[in-house]
Each structure stands twice: as structure tokens, then as C-alpha cells.
């Protein structure tokens, strides 16, 4: 607790730095971070509505659930991956916990996510989606997703310190995950066994959770809640373990 208090000021300053850097202090910069996922969504809707979306209710929202979560995951983990190396001149000279850089990066992606989330709700309203009590469960998924992203960020940032081509490999992996997460297609046409395989993709599970609540108007099962929690705790645990084991060695590689 004492530590948190000690580094509170630094953390605030780091978040504000990352935020300013991201938007370059322009209103347009902020608008762009909302506009960019919208444009992305537009492209997907235009391309796939005729192809796959004929019998999917609220197809735009269906896609948006996917892009919303994917975009947050991508930004948060990519930024997290680079956060240690980007601050190496500081880490090399001043003794402050390195994870602060990762966390502050995650906070600024979270802010971005929240902005997009607002747009998401506006679009839901426009698409005639009924807002019910089940929406109150969304924060559960978001909290899990934040933990999941921090964990993946911890893992990636360590890999990136040791191997600089992690970023290229990760970009390829991201593309793969993007196609495997059922962002613009439905999985009911697959056999039940294949459908179960999708549950092994944490990103798909997060997207599915959103869709069940927003589009179907239901609350997912208890098991599904536990699955999300399991993924986020697993990712966080592996991330922390790697960080704890290797963070003293980072210095030699920076």
C-alpha cells in the first residue's frame, strides 16, 4: 500500500505523458481515435453485409462487438510490448518499478477503449437495441479483459526486451487471432466440436460475452463467467511470473 502511495504521483505523470503523446494535444487526435474504429467498422460492414450478414440480427453491432474488443486488445498489448523498451533510458538510470510504464500505457489504451465504448452505445441505441439490466454485467468482462491485457502485455514486453523481432511475430499472430475470433462471421454453421474449439480463444470469449449481453439480451452462464476469469488470471499469473523472474535481467538488453 505504501508503495502505491509513493508512486501515485509518478504514475499520474506517466499516464498524462502517454496520453499527451498519443493525441499530440490536438482535438483531432482525440477524434481520430474514435473515428478510426468507426471507419474500420464501416469497411467491414460494407464488405460483409451482403456476404455473411443477411440472417444475422444487428449485424453492425455484431461486428462492432468484435472490432471494439480486438482494437482494445491490439492497442493495449502492442503498446505494452514496447513500453519497457521505449522507456529504457529511464529504466537504465533511475530506480523505479518498471511495471509502472506498462500500466500507464494500459491506462491510456483503456481511456481510448472507453471513448470507443461510448460510440458503441450510441450505435446500439441507433440500431434499436433494448438496454436492460444485463448491461450492468459488462464491467465484469471489461475488468477481466483489462487483467488479461496487462498479463499479455507483461509477457510480450519481456519477450520484446530479449528479442526485438517479437513485434513482427506478434503482428502476424494478431492477424491470425483477428480471423479466428469470429469478428465478422458466425460460428453456428460449424460442427459443435469446432464451436467448442472457439472457446479456447480468449478473445472470442470476451467478444461472445459482449454479444450475448448486448444483442441477445441475456446474461451468460456462470461457467462462462468463470472461463473469462480463468483466462485473465492465467494471463496475469504467467505475465507476473515472467516479470518477476526476468526483470533484473532487462537492464543488460536495453
Amino acid at each position, binding site marked *: 500500500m505504501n508503495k502505491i502511495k509513493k508512486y501515485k504521483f509518478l504514475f499520474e505523470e506517466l499516464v498524462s505523458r502517454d496520453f499527451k503523446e498519443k493525441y499530440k494535444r490536438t482535438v483531432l487526435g482525440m477524434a481520430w481515435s474514435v473515428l478510426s474504429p468507426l471507419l474500420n467498422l464501416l469497411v467491414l460492414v460494407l464488405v460483409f453485409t451482403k456476404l455473411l450478414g443477411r440472417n444475422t440480427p444487428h449485424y453492425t453491432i455484431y461486428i462492432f462487438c468484435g472490432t471494439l474488443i480486438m482494437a482494445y486488445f491490439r492497442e493495449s498489448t502492442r503498446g505494452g510490448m514496447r513500453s519497457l523498451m521505449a522507456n529504457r533510458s529511464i529504466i537504465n*538510470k533511475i530506480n523505479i518499478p518498471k511495471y509502472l510504464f506498462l500500466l500507464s500505457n494500459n491506462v491510456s489504451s483503456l481511456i481510448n477503449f472507453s471513448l470507443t465504448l461510448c460510440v458503441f452505445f450510441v450505435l446500439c441505441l441507433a440500431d434499436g437495441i433494448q438496454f436492460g439490466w444485463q448491461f450492468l454485467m459488462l464491467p465484469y468482462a471489461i475488468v477481466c479483459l483489462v487483467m488479461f491485457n496487462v498479463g499479455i502485455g507483461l509477457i510480450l514486453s519481456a519477450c520484446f526486451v530479449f528479442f526485438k523481432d517479437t513485434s513482427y511475430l506478434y503482428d502476424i499472430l494478431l492477424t491470425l487471432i483477428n480471423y479466428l475470433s469470429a469478428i465478422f462471421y458466425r460460428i453456428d454453421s460449424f460442427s459443435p466440436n469446432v464451436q467448442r474449439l472457439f472457446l479456447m480463444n480468449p478473445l472470442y470469449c470476451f467478444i461472445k460475452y459482449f454479444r450475448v449481453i448486448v444483442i441477445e439480451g441475456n446474461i451468460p452462464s456462470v461457467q462462462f463467467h468463470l472461463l473469462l476469469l480463468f483466462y485473465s488470471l492465467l494471463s496475469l499469473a504467467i505475465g507476473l511470473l515472467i516479470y518477476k523472474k526476468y526483470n533484473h535481467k532487462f537492464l543488460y538488453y536495453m
Partner: protein
Amino acid sequence: MSNSLSAVNCNDVSIRYITGDFKDIGFKEYLMRKLTGNYHVTEFWADKNISFSLEEGDMLGIIGSNGAGKSTLLKAISGVMIPTRGTITTKGNIAALLELTAGFDGELTVRENTYLRGAMLGYTRDFMNDMYESIIEFAELEKFQDRPFKQLSSGMKSRLAFSIACLVNPDILILDEVLSVGDGAFRKKSGDKMKEILSGGVTGILVSHSTQQVRELCNKVLWLDHGNQVCFTDEVDLYLNAYEDFLINKKLPASYEDVQMMSERYLQKVELEREEKRAKQVAKLEKMIENEHVDVVDAAVNIIRKNRPELLKENA
């Protein structure tokens, strides 16, 4: 523990450092080299069995040629690195200036950077609010407060870094080659500030290649050579003389007698040089009188004007 009162206590510290092919190579390259047996990592001891302790108000000068392990030791003291063996205990807040402008962000303004740096050094927002004005004033950057940091000249950047580190009243101040910042006027100001801080009970550690600076500021000296501790002593002048001799003759002292001998030799050399210079001037003077038939007094004044102009000003 008898040492628990000292501000910095370094107990038999050894630090192993690794260098080699591992930096900046990708996973692919790593695999290739591992498979072909081309992957080399060398370990070496950057510091071996270093022991010293500093009391409050001490100023330690760390001397030694390049690769002596000075910076690595500083990293260990500031807590960035963990010693492979031995322990380091420090008491109080450490402000490390291992490299002045590291950690500043070019996109942020001077004001924002000041707060960010203050936060990194472990201070609270309230404290920085109180100190901000005087930091900017000392750095002479009043007109640049809201300019992006990248627009400052390198001198201004170092001035700001120095001001922050000094004015935030650290308990332990670590300085690595930083007193040589800014122009002559600021250098004087920063030197004075340093002395003022040190007299206020701050414990300081200074790495410098300027023996003059160490003589002026430090009351203790740690001499390192290739990671080995040559000495830790408070006989600053004696050991610095010996160090100067070492820089010329490249031979380390083996005993205290050696040190005294080296110091003697250095002093003789300085004396000799001074003598030579004097002789040269005398010769010059004589030549002038012979060739130009000027008055002896005029010639002497000319020489003084050239070598020690301040003497003339005082008299006038």
C-alpha cells in the same frame, strides 16, 4: 549492526556484467546462432569486492580510467542494478543523475518534464508545486516554461536536470560527470550550489574525470581500476596526486609507500613544470629586452597582462 548509521554502506560488493551477441538480435538470429554454435556471451566482473561506507555529509569522488567499473557501481548504489554478491544499504532518498538528460521527453513542455522528473525522483505533487518556481529560476528557464522540451538547447536541458536534482533536497545525490554542464557562468553557479548542498548534510557521490573537481568537492576518494578497488581513503590530496602519477606512468601503487612515492613524484613533476614555465618566461623577457629595447617594467607588465590579467585589474 555497527554500520547502520552510515548513509551509504557498500559491503564487499561484486557485480557481474554480461556482454555479447545477445543485444539487438531477434529470435530468428538467436536460434541460428545457437544452432551453429555462434552465440557468444561473455561474463565479466565489472566490480570486484568493493567496500566502503559514507557518513552523512560525505562527498565521495570515484576515480579511475574508462572501464574501471565506476558507472556500474553507481547503478548498483542507485538501485537500478542488483549486486551479484555483497550488499549495499542506503539511507534516505536518492537522486541519481547518472546521465543528465535521460528520461526527459522531447514532446512535453519544460513544466511537464520538471514534474515528471520530480515524480521519478520520488517526490509528491505538493512538494513539486512548492519547488517549481525556484527550480525554473535556478535553471534560468523562466521564458521557456511552456515550450516543448525538444526546442531547448542541450545546455538548457542539462541546466534544468541539474537544477531539479539539486533543489529537491535529496539525502543522497549521485552525480556522473555532470558538473561540467552549461556555460562558464552556470558552471560556477552549479559548483557553488553543490558546495552549499554538501555543507547542508547531503551525502554525495561524484564520478568525474576532472581531478581538480574531485579535489575541490570531495572529502573521500574511491579509486577503481578494472573493477578492483585500489583504495578508499580520506587522504584526498595524497591519493589524487598518486592518481595523476598513475595516469602518466600507468602503474598502480602496491602499498602506502608507493602512494607516497607516486604523490611525491607527481608533485616534483608539477614543480618541474612550473619551474620550466618560469624559465621560459624569463627567457622571453630577456629576449624582449634585448631585441626591442623596451623598458623592463613594461615587458613585465606585458607578460602579466598575458598570463594573469586579473592581477592588473585589482591594482588598477
